[in-house]
């Protein structure tokens, strides 16, 4: 690990050689020391790690439940996060309540950590609404489906924080595939130009649907940001501790007025792209197996058992808790009601719009004419 300070005094955090990852827990659960990042997790107690472990278990359990709900027709679609639990939980748990999140569609564990109500997470996937929650209640925006669009929103929000004189940070999540989109690159330029307190959190899960990351990037993704004037960190995305350390470092910069930071969390999408996808068409099972050995939950479990924090009893209670949350999730999901016919006209505009009101009224007349209840 090397820290370089460039000629204009901007600290650029570049792993050296470029392939090197920040890792604090190896796949076997051993604590690896890293002089630069150790201090960022020095205060994390065994109990706190156990609580993170619980989060990891729960979000995986929820993910499995959601896939089951989709199979049973309760959801239209679901994008599993299997394999990416540590990247999401580690980063999201590091945020302050007043920090703001702009995510993509797969960050359901981030939503969970932000305190989004369970059924609200799946409204979109069940198809009862275009988004699940009021962003201002949890400081997390409605996920963006158009790849990369949200990264610019994050920069705008972060600049708004600067203008408002608050030290809140903004974090934006996106995938490896997203790094190709013009919007994401423009976001890097704008963030650098305005010294925006924003964290670019790229989950490099090796795939954009069927396309391997090698089609999108010829160099490790973390190497892209420094050329824009943004320091970057390449972190083992399956290592919750390392993700916390990297995110803390980036947030420290953001909260401290030092501008944007780019994090590449190297992970793997263990499931299909979505429940509609058939990864057997393109995923090499051997590659998947290699990554299975780097499971983000297994290593925390091993580590905690080794430290004696995770007892059988605690493990069982966490498993129970996960099942409980999943049951609650399922119940909340199936209880979500279908939208009323005329609701399609709601919230198009914030201010009165006569022609649309007229169209709505005509449709109400039509619904009455065919004997349907309109509202």
């Amino acid at each position, binding site marked *: 690990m090397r820290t370089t300070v460039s000629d204009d005094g901007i600290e650029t955090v570049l792993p050296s050689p470029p392939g090197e990852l920040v890792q604090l827990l190896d796949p076997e659960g051993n604590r690896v020391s890293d002089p630069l990042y150790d201090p960022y997790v020095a205060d994390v107690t065994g109990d706190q790690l156990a609580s993170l472990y619980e989060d990891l278990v729960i979000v995986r359990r929820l993910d499995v439940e959601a896939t089951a709900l989709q199979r049973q027709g309760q959801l239209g679609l679901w994008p599993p996060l299997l394999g990416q639990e540590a990247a999401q939980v580690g980063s999201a748990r590091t945020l302050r309540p007043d920090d703001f999140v702009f995510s993509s*569609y797969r960050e359901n564990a981030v939503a969970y950590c932000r305190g989004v109500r369970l059924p609200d997470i799946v409204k979109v996937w069940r*198809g009862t609404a275009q988004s699940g929650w009021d962003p201002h209640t949890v400081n997390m925006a409605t996920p963006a489906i*158009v790849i990369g669009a949200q990264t610019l929103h994050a920069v705008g929000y972060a600049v708004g924080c600067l203008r408002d004189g608050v030290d809140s940070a903004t974090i934006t999540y996106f995938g490896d595939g997203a790094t190709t989109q013009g919007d994401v690159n423009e976001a890097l330029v704008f963030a650098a130009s305005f010294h925006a307190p924003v964290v670019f959190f790229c989950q490099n899960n090796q795939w954009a*649907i069927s396309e391997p990351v090698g089609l999108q990037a010829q160099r490790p993704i973390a190497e892209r940001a420094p050329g824009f004037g943004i320091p970057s960190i390449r972190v083992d995305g399956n290592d919750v501790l390392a993700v916390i350390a990297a995110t803390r470092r980036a947030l420290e910069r953001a909260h401290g007025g030092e501008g944007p930071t780019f994090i590449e969390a190297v992970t793997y999408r263990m499931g299909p792209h979505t429940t509609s*996808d058939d990864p057997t*068409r393109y995923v090499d099972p051997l590659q998947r197996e290699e990554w299975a050995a780097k499971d983000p939950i297994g290593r925390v479990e091993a580590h905690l058992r080794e430290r004696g924090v995770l007892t059988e009893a605690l493990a069982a209670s966490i498993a129970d808790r996960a099942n409980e949350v999943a049951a609650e999730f399922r119940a909340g999901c199936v209880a979500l009601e279908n*939208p009323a016919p005329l609701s399609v006209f709601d919230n198009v505009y914030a201010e009165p719009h006569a022609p*649309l009101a007229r169209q709505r009224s005509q*449709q109400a007349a039509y619904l009455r004419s065919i004997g349907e209840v309109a509202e």
Partner: protein
Amino acid sequence: MTELTLAKAITSGLRRALADDDRVVLLGEDIGTLGGVFRVTDGLQREFGADRVMDMPLAESGIIGMAVGLAYRGFRPVVEIQFDGFIYPAFDQIVAQVAKMHYRTGGAVRMPITIRVPFGGGIGAVEHHSESPEAYFAHTAGLRVVTCSTPQDAHTMIRQAIACDDPVLFFEPKRRYWTKGEVDEDATYPFDRARVVLEGTDVTIVAYGPLVATAIDAAIAAGDDGVSVEVVDLRSLSPLDLDTVEASVSKTGRLVITHEAQQFGGLGAELAASITDRCFLHLEAAPARVTGFDTPYPSARAEEHFLPDLDRILDAVDRVLGRANALTGWSDS
């Protein structure tokens, strides 16, 4: 003649185009190994190689921009846009480059680019996966815009689009991908003419893409009710074959237009305005439009409340016939 789904009819059309002309190249996200999210390009990369069927990095502007360069070099790129709602990042390249290059260069540079876009709703999808953006492109001079409603047209028209020396937006009615029909690979007929799919004398219903089947159902239902409906499948949205619609409306005197896209400024407006201009003295009633509402496309479980359906079309048929309908007695205030 073979029986094919509409999706597979496009596949076979692409296969023929690739085989017939080695300047044809396919570009898109996930079109290679995966065969596209709708499997329309399934097997084509294996058959023609990764140089002819190219998986593209994830950026629509990049893909279309690259297609422009390939066309400059004499290729005939066929681009797949994964879903309707993801064409907008490429909007500049399409309307400011692809559409204008031939004009800009005084005819020196042709842009025989085909842009395939699965479009429309009815598949219970999340946001951005059910849009009908055809009017944006139809309003853009220099582009041609077509769609298909049958496997036969799907096959023939994709080949015609690729063979055309102008850029063509080829909209594929994704909810009809699984519709089956006979396909004659050797069939030849004009690219830019509408087709009367059902003859009738009282009312003309004009539809395209996914709603042609709905229009036919409506015509049959109206027939049971003693109303003779003529159904026109536009096929080409730009240019519009106004001659065919004019001939029909001159006969029926009544026009109902249906599309999934939002009504305001949609193709129905152009059709209503043009036909009113051409058939003013023949029209017994103002043309009626049955369309998506002027709202964003709603969530999956609300889409049935947004999309035109058989009953809404029949109600409009009643309206142009001056019969009792939903708006009888309705008032604005």
